[in-house]
């Protein structure tokens, strides 16, 4: 049963299949997005689809290597990995060492390839979080443990925010799902949801008093329902007052803490400004590409938006446009379906682990993939402001592909050992 030499024994083939499917879909769509009839060769390294092909090959090798390696010491090595990543994240911030690409000081040039430490920070953070939370007598419900867990997540966030890569920074927020699964009060999720809702509403509705009146009304209504529960009444009262305070605070916070381009992007999504030429150009063209795909799409390599390069960054952050345009709603269903299957599969895997380390790590993987998938597609269809994060395994980019490969195959390796001793 526990034949350690049978590397592929107990490997979760469903996950591997979904992984391969997404990589393949990615490569074909990158090919469509950057196709230039003058470079017809499929693996020409001067083109992005050529490079991506090589990245895929490297990723497959890395995947096999991970499956071959011993996973038992992973938990022990987690702090070391974490420290290395944090050091790398600090290194990129040193002028002259880190390379600035597209406004983000996020890259280290290794000569043969450029490395993006923030991609690997997600992995090592998940590992350390799993290691810490799986420790004996560690409960998220305890303030001390909660703060340490929060600190593990916050440190790389702060460093990445310095780059400033907003997208990657926000990805770490998704780890709240991990904490929730491990016992964090559901109020954290609810309060976070309410804050986001209030933030959006107060930006859309210029007059704060409308929102304040609505909040007071909602507060009284809830207090009436819970009039028997004194503790609840008090909570609701404090909550309402805090919410009203927040409504007034949001505008100043929004105006001060965000950059002009961030505010512009948010304004476009919320429909406060109707701009299709400058800030809103990307998103508008992206929506046109996806919307014009209809049910079955325009056909592979026949999307006019894609082939005539109307959508900037189409092979990376806006790769979903190619799918929407050339494969239509059918293609959208397949891709969204694949991600959802992957996420559910990861949760199934998580819950069948004997070791808490593996389970917590699995939830970390699911959270990160979910956040990428949700934010990226939302951005291409105009749900979210433009935040530069890739679509996992589909978007062009070596670091991204490699980091998701490592993230997933570490989980597969852990899972294949689930029956073993840990």
């Amino acid at each position, binding site marked *: 049963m526990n034949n350690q030499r049978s590397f592929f024994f107990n490997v979760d083939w469903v996950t591997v299949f979904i992984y391969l499917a997404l990589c393949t879909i990615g490569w074909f769509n990158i090919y469509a997005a950057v196709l230039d009839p003058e470079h017809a060769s499929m693996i020409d390294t001067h083109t992005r689809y050529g490079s991506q092909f090589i990245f895929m090959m490297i990723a497959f090798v890395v995947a096999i290597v991970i499956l071959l390696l011993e996973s038992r010491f992973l938990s022990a090595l987690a702090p070391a990995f974490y420290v290395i990543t944090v050091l790398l994240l600090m290194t990129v911030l040193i002028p002259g060492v880190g390379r600035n690409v597209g406004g983000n000081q996020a890259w280290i040039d290794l000569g043969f390839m450029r490395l993006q430490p923030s991609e690997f920070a997600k992995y090592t953070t998940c590992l350390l979080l799993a290691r810490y939370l799986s420790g004996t007598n560690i409960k998220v419900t305890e303030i001390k443990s909660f703060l340490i867990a929060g600190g593990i997540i916050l440190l790389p966030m702060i460093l990445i925010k310095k780059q400033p890569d907003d997208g990657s920074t926000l990805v770490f927020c998704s780890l709240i*799902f991990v904490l*929730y*699964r*491990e*016992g964090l009060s*559901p109020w954290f999720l609810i309060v976070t949801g309410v804050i986001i809702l209030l933030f959006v509403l107060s930006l859309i509705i210029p007059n704060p008093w409308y929102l304040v009146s609505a909040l007071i009304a909602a507060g009284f209504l809830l207090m009436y329902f819970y009039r028997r529960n004194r503790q609840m009444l008090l909570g609701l009262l404090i909550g309402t007052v805090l919410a009203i305070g927040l409504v007034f605070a949001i505008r100043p916070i929004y105006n001060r803490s965000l950059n002009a381009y961030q505010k512009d992007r948010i304004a476009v999504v919320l429909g406060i400004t109707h701009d299709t030429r400058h800030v809103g150009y990307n998103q508008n*063209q992206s*929506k*046109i*590409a*996806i*919307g*014009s*795909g*209809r*049910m079955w799409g325009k056909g592979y390599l026949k999307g*006019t*938006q894609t*082939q*005539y*390069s*109307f959508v900037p960054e189409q092979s990376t952050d806006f790769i979903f446009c190619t799918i*929407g*345009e050339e494969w*239509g*709603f059918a293609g*959208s*269903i397949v891709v*969204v*379906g694949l*991600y*959802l299957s992957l*996420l*559910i599969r990861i*949760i199934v895997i*998580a*819950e069948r682990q004997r070791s*808490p380390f593996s389970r917590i790590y699995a*939830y970390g993987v*699911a959270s990160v993939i*979910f956040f990428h998938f*949700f934010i990226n*597609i*939302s951005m291409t*269809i105009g*749900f979210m402001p433009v935040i530069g994060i890739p679509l996992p395994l589909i978007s062009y980019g070596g670091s991204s592909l490699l980091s998701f490969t490592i993230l997933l195959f570490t989980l597969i390796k852990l899972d294949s050992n689930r029956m073993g001793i840990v």
Partner: protein
Amino acid sequence: MNSFFARRYVITGIFITVALILLARLFYMQIIDDRYLLFAKNNVVRPQIVYPARGPILDRRGVILVGNQPVYDVMITPKLVKAFDTLEFCRLIGIDKEGFDKRYKKAYKHSPRLQSVFEGQLSTITSASLQERMYEFPGFDLVLRTVRSYPDSSAAQFLGYIGEVNDARIAKSGGYYRQGDYIGISGVESSYEPELRGTRGVQNLMVDSRGAAKGHFADGAYDTAAVAGERLTSSLDSRIQKLGERLMANKVGSIVAIEPSTGEILCFVSSPTYNPNQLVGRQRSENYSELNQDPYKPFLVRPIQARYQPGSSFKPLDALIAIQEGVITPQTTYNCPGYYIAGNRRIQCFHGEVHGTVNLASAVAHSCNGYFFMVFEKLINQKGPKYTDTSFTLWRDKVLKFGIARKLNIDLPGENSGFLATSAFYDKWYKRGGWRSSTVISLGIGQSEILATPLQLANIEATIANRGFFYKPHLIKSIGDKQIIKKEYTERNYVGIDSGYFAPVIDGMQAVVERGTAVGVRIPGIIMCGKTGTAQTGHGEDNSVFVAFAPRDNPKIAIAVVVEHGGQGATWAAPIASFIVEKYLRDSISRRPSGITPDYYMNKNLLPAIVAKTPPGKKPSADSLKKAAVLDSLKKLKQKQVAAANKKAALLKQAAMLYKHKGNE
């Protein structure tokens, strides 16, 4: 730890919900909302108009009057312009640095990414030297276009010109024309615009996000080809057209020649004219404004827009009506004492000549005013002295049948209908019953309240040549292969005179050339029937008028020539007409017994010095002090009857002419 096991369902639930929300949004965008398909198409498809070649216009023998000539436009795409030798480029296309900057700014303002015209219509030589060096000038392209060219350099007013369409026409065209399109503005170019312009094609080009063309939308399935404009064959004979233009050089006036058996216009000279090639190419606007300010009004289409008193050339028509009405017979004689007593006034015959006893033919031949005053008086007194207005209206209607005072609806824009006073006009003027035949007697010799265009004069001759009918005069014989372009051009318009009554009048007209007023222009071997006219203009020299047709039997050409301020009809108009007639019938000009040669007439300058103040085409007006005095007194007398102030002024002008009954021919 597994106490929170159930939370896996919450997290799974959140994942599924989010995925479903995304799918719902995608479903809305991709299936329900169909705007995006349109946006995508608008993004990528640029309909580009393919302009057809404009149809050529030929003369009746197939000589090209207007054709198309290739020219090159220098196009610019400002975003693609890179550093280059600006001065060399300016030198090649013949502009200065300042002009370059101006054009560049204009193009950039139009669109930095789209192509626009930088400099239009380069000559073949310029474009040839530029062509081989174009690679040195990134962002610039040479594009082939066609412009009008006039190999014959003639018939400018007949052909008209094309120009950029104005906003009013764009609005009226219902979206057909766009800014920058060319359209026929005058002449045949204007009246046959729909036939000449052809059918535009559309190419649905695909462009990428930078506006670069990437092939045809749907492989050209929605593209349409341009269909070239129709070839128009005009009725003009370029030989006599060119001869006519040379003969009329440095003179103000018109020549209109019609083929009586078809109504086709053979010659259509409006003088002074201009070279139509002047309105093509880069100097177009300069030339245009220069021509537009020319005091001799070269843009005026005199054959159909200038109005003249026909003078004695009107006499044959008067005689025909009188015979038809039975008030005279060809044998009716009149003893001319050198003057005529009309009412209580004595009007001199031309130069006081005493014609003695004249019959109809000799009265026409020698242009005896007395005879025709007599004829006219008989016509107007036909119904008795109390019914002057009835008789006048009867007479007027007969005259109108010949095409006087009404439009002949020639296939050119801007035709003038001419003028002939009505009885109501005189009623207003003299009070009802206050006028009689003697009052309006000068109408009998084609003077005073009668104005005709040269086309109308020529049409009268065509009617006489046909012995009683005319075909509507027209300029275009066939469109493409279609021979009959309008049914009305094949219909005979009868003027209500029996064909038998024409012989004595034609006898007289033959005698005009053989022994009468125009004896000097006789063409050996060709029997030409004509009539001179010396029409008063009210100022300066009289207008020289000659109308004719030839040969007498089976006539091939009817002609009217007007030389403004040329004096007597026999002096200028008649010789010019005779050369045109002979050139048309024989294709050569023989030695004349009188010794006249075309060269003499070609070289003669008769341009009136005062033309600038009284542009031709406007009614002649009185200018002598004496007439002004009469005018003043009349003004006071008639003030009560004339209501509208501007109407009054027009009427007074007419009135002034009433009192000019000095010796007419």
